[in-house]
């Protein structure tokens, strides 16, 4: 069943980023389309200088949980 179907995935690197892969549309706060598929890294440590994308800032922020 649906074996040829690409599976969408959200991979969580704790305190660092979300890696989203698959067939997606990325929209900004105002509803504008920023990007379409197939892979994106979203910052989830709060420290990126290139929001909403991960820029590697999580290293050294010591954000935990």
């Amino acid at each position, binding site marked *: 069943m649906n074996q040829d179907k690409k599976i969408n995935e*959200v991979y969580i690197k704790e305190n660092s980023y979300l890696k989203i892969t698959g*067939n997606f*549309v990325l929209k900004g706060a105002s509803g504008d389309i920023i990007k379409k598929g197939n892979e994106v890294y*979203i910052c989830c440590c709060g420290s990126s200088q290139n*929001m909403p994308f991960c820029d590697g800032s999580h290293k050294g922020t010591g954000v935990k949980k």
Partner: protein
Amino acid sequence: MERDNNRKYSNKDIEVFWEPKKCIHASTCYIELIGVFNPSRRPWVNMEDAPTEKIIEVVNKCPTEALMWRWLDEGKNSLITEQDKNHIKIRRPAKYNELIKDNEPGKGTDVMEVRIMKDGPVVVEGNFRLITSEGKEIKTGEFASFCRCGQSNSMPFCDGMHRKTGFIG
């Protein structure tokens, strides 16, 4: 018995229902209509600050059942069009299940939508698997709201902390 914090707010036309436990802090309501939905104010909902049509529009955008509405005039509730049923208090559960079914792989609606909420979480909607860095699959979802500020107490999910810490991004 555990006390729920469910609330009901009304104006002359409609009632809006608020079930805090169902809120995933997608922040749609207060970004769209801060005059009506203001989390810093008590009570946080002010039904007099916008026309009924606008309130309905914003409640319909709530991605969960945390916010729902219905006409005070019961006769009008039976005339609601399909597209508005999502957030009708009396109709939502059945319709919600239909929506999930429609979204199953193979039905042509398997595009995931990823929305960055202003100064808030990232909301993912669609069919997806959620994998942790240990390779564990913790949830297969149709909907989730993930923390972007790094301060949530229920990681990886948003718990609304971004508002208290003044997260910008």
